[in-house]
């Protein structure tokens, strides 16, 4: 297979074989071409060169669910294949079909439920059922566990194993190497559009796969220096709502010179917490920063002026002006503080310290890779004398090298005396960076651990809502 997008050779001469009954993992960094390859196999992207042969239908479950939120489960599952009775849809038959499908595969869902009311794990079942209704010979799963709790991940892979046992060929596209080791029989590693390794999973390990993905050693994180934590941010009974994200009750402190990690599954109130700290949603309860109260009157501008830097989750939608160049984006948030003539040097500092490529302040941000865009967002926050950094998924969707750089800079900011609140859905990231870990589930804080007392199993259970 070959496929080029503009100047990027996304997939460059890749062969891939899937056998009935196997679970194969396809791993690689962001931009390695694995999602493009899956889209080609599914038929959503036409290859420039190459052929596809399949013994039956090919199904694809997307990383970000492609469900119609306002419609019911059966409407989503049977979209465009609805059983008809003359001119109308046979609703009873449709519901029965979805129920039967769920019973067959052990994926019980109420066919009449409206999708937007369902928890993430159930939405994924709906997404899976939609593909299974077409009885695919090949099932492609693109980052299927991104939004699942550890316990949900286990039961999800039980289902996948059941499918494979029935003779379905399964390809799991992922970057979570623990899942690769635990659940796949074969693993294919991609880098820069090419296959750089094919292994029987039993004959390799996570470290070796990671080295292959990166094309060298995985960079080490910055060392943690000794600091003397001092009070900085205090939240007491803070509650807030941002869209569908609800924070029910948050009471915790972040001290200067420490990284506090918030562990939790996506959709458990993290967005409301980040937005309440950024000052873009109203909140109740008490928030104090450096001894002074923060309230609804403290706009984002006033928080920025006090040294609070929020790195939003969605760099493209919430942090960057994609049509603008790097220089003007680096100034965003400090446009009134920085002199116009200083925009360029501020941008050069970010480019230098964060290794932004290309190193050109005039480059249009929308044309940069996700990793370089993220370096600009993080760099802008960390080079502007931050006192508190709220980093919400700061390494989302960026490659291992860029992620290590971002994490190192966060640790350096902590070493230099800033308080860091790290909100992440990746437990490994939190364990690598945080001095303390707080666990959030259903908008409430359900556990607290010091770095020395971190218990991975216990945290996983708390994240899933088990006490």
């Amino acid at each position: 297979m070959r496929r080029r997008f503009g100047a990027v050779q996304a997939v460059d001469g890749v062969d891939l074989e899937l056998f009935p009954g196997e679970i194969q993992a396809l791993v690689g960094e962001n931009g390695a071409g694995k999602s493009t390859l899956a889209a080609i196999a599914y038929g959503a992207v036409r290859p420039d060169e190459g052929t596809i042969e399949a013994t039956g239908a090919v199904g694809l479950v997307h990383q970000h669910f492609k469900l119609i939120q306002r419609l019911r489960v059966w409407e989503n599952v049977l979209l465009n294949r609805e059983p008809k009775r003359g001119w109308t849809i046979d609703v009873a038959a449709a519901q029965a079909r979805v129920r039967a499908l769920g019973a067959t595969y052990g994926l019980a869902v109420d066919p009449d439920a409206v999708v937007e009311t369902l928890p993430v794990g159930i939405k994924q079942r709906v997404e899976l059922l939609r593909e299974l209704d077409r009885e695919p010979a090949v099932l492609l799963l693109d980052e299927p566990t991104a939004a699942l709790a550890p316990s949900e991940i286990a039961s999800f892979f039980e289902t996948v194993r059941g499918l494979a046992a029935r003779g379905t060929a399964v390809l799991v596209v992922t970057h979570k190497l623990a899942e690769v080791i635990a659940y796949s029989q074969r693993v294919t590693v991609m880098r820069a559009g090419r296959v750089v390794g094919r292994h029987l999973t039993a004959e390799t390990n996570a470290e070796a796969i990671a080295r292959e993905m990166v094309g060298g050693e995985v960079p080490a994180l910055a060392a943690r220096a000794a600091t003397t934590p001092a009070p900085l941010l205090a939240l007491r009974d803070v509650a807030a709502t941002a869209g569908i994200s609800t924070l029910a009750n948050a009471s915790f402190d972040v001290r200067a010179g420490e990284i506090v990690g918030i562990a939790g599954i996506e959709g458990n109130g993290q967005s409301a917490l980040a937005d309440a700290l950024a000052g873009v949603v109203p909140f109740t309860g008490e928030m104090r920063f450096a001894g002074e109260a923060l309230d609804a009157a403290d706009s984002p501008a006033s928080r920025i002026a006090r040294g609070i830097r929020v790195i939003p989750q969605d760099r493209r939608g919430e942090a960057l002006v994609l049509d603008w160049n790097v220089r003007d984006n680096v100034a965003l948030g400090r446009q009134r503080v920085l002199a116009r003539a200083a925009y360029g040097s501020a941008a050069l500092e970010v480019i230098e310290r964060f290794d932004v490529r290309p190193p050109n302040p005039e480059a249009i941000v929308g044309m940069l890779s996700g990793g370089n865009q993220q370096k600009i967002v993080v760099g802008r926050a960390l080079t502007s004398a931050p006192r508190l950094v709220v980093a919400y998924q700061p390494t989302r969707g960026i490659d291992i090298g860029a992620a290590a750089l971002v994490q190192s800079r966060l640790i350096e900011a902590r070493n230099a005396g800033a308080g860091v609140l790290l909100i992440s859905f990746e437990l490994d990231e939190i364990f690598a960076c945080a001095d303390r870990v707080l666990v959030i589930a259903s908008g409430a804080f359900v556990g607290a651990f010091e770095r020395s007392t971190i218990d991975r199993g216990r945290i996983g259970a708390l994240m899933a809502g088990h006490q």
Partner: protein
Amino acid sequence: MNALLRSRGARDALVALVVVFGVGSIAMLLAHVSPLVGFGALFDGALGTPEEVAETLVQAANVLFPALGIAVAFRAGLFNIGAEGQLILGGFAAGWIGAQLPLPAFAAVPLLLVAGALAGGAWGAIPGFLRARFGANEVIATLMLNVIAILLTTYLVNGPLQQGGAGASETAALPRSAYLPDPIALVGDPHLTLAYLGTPIVVGIVLALVLRWALLRTVFGYELRAAGDAPEAAKRAGIDLGRTALVAMALSGAIAGLGGATIVAGSLHRFNTGLSPGYGFIAIAVALVGNLDPLWIVVAAIAFGMLQSGGIAMQAEAGVPREVVSLVTGLVIIALAGRRVVARRRTT
């Protein structure tokens, strides 16, 4: 995206020309007029004599001001469809105040222009305030305010402020001291200079240069563009979106209102209900054709002025029906603006 749009510029223009001349020729043939004679009259009528050049520049200025105002709002992400109403109200304020106060020229002309800008600015600030305070959709608000502005001024000049008897829908004539130098009347003047040839267009071009500088080089312009290009990121960067909406709409309306005042002081010399044959709407197309860049809007406005003044000649000299003239004008706008919309959709 902007770089992409500009790279498509040459192709856009070519496609537009082919569409305009192609469809325009067919329409003329159907009306039994030779396209060569018809289009020849268009260019000759727009640029053939100094008087015609002056007319072209007057027509260009009439759409330039509202187009610049529209560009300010659009750059801030606000679809100000209300330039027509803002322009009419600005013209009304200039005409009414100008007729009330006999003042020397050095005071009268600036006073009229300021009055027009303030009235248009106030009219633009209303939807800006509604948007900032209640999140009201500015498209609907500005569209409705157009109707109110037209009917309000029509009522005032037919009722409380009626002048001249015989049911004329206009305010009293301005004193001569309040006239802008009239480009057309000055054509035969031996003291004619280029600056006099088109006072309004010169003011408009200076304004375009100032606006461009303000948009690209000042913190005000930076925040306005951030609010328009990425509102969520702008909000999180401490930019007050409500305040930006209010200021941008007021400025947008003020520029359109200033345009209305230049029409009153420059050529009508009083306000009447025929002040604008829809300049505020045509200006939307001019602003978009000019890629919301003040300099390109000047170019687009001059092209439009040529179409307007040349169109009269097309009709009078080549016998092209009025409908075909309107068709050609419409074609130019659709061809250019349409291409731009297509390019924009492709990239987002």
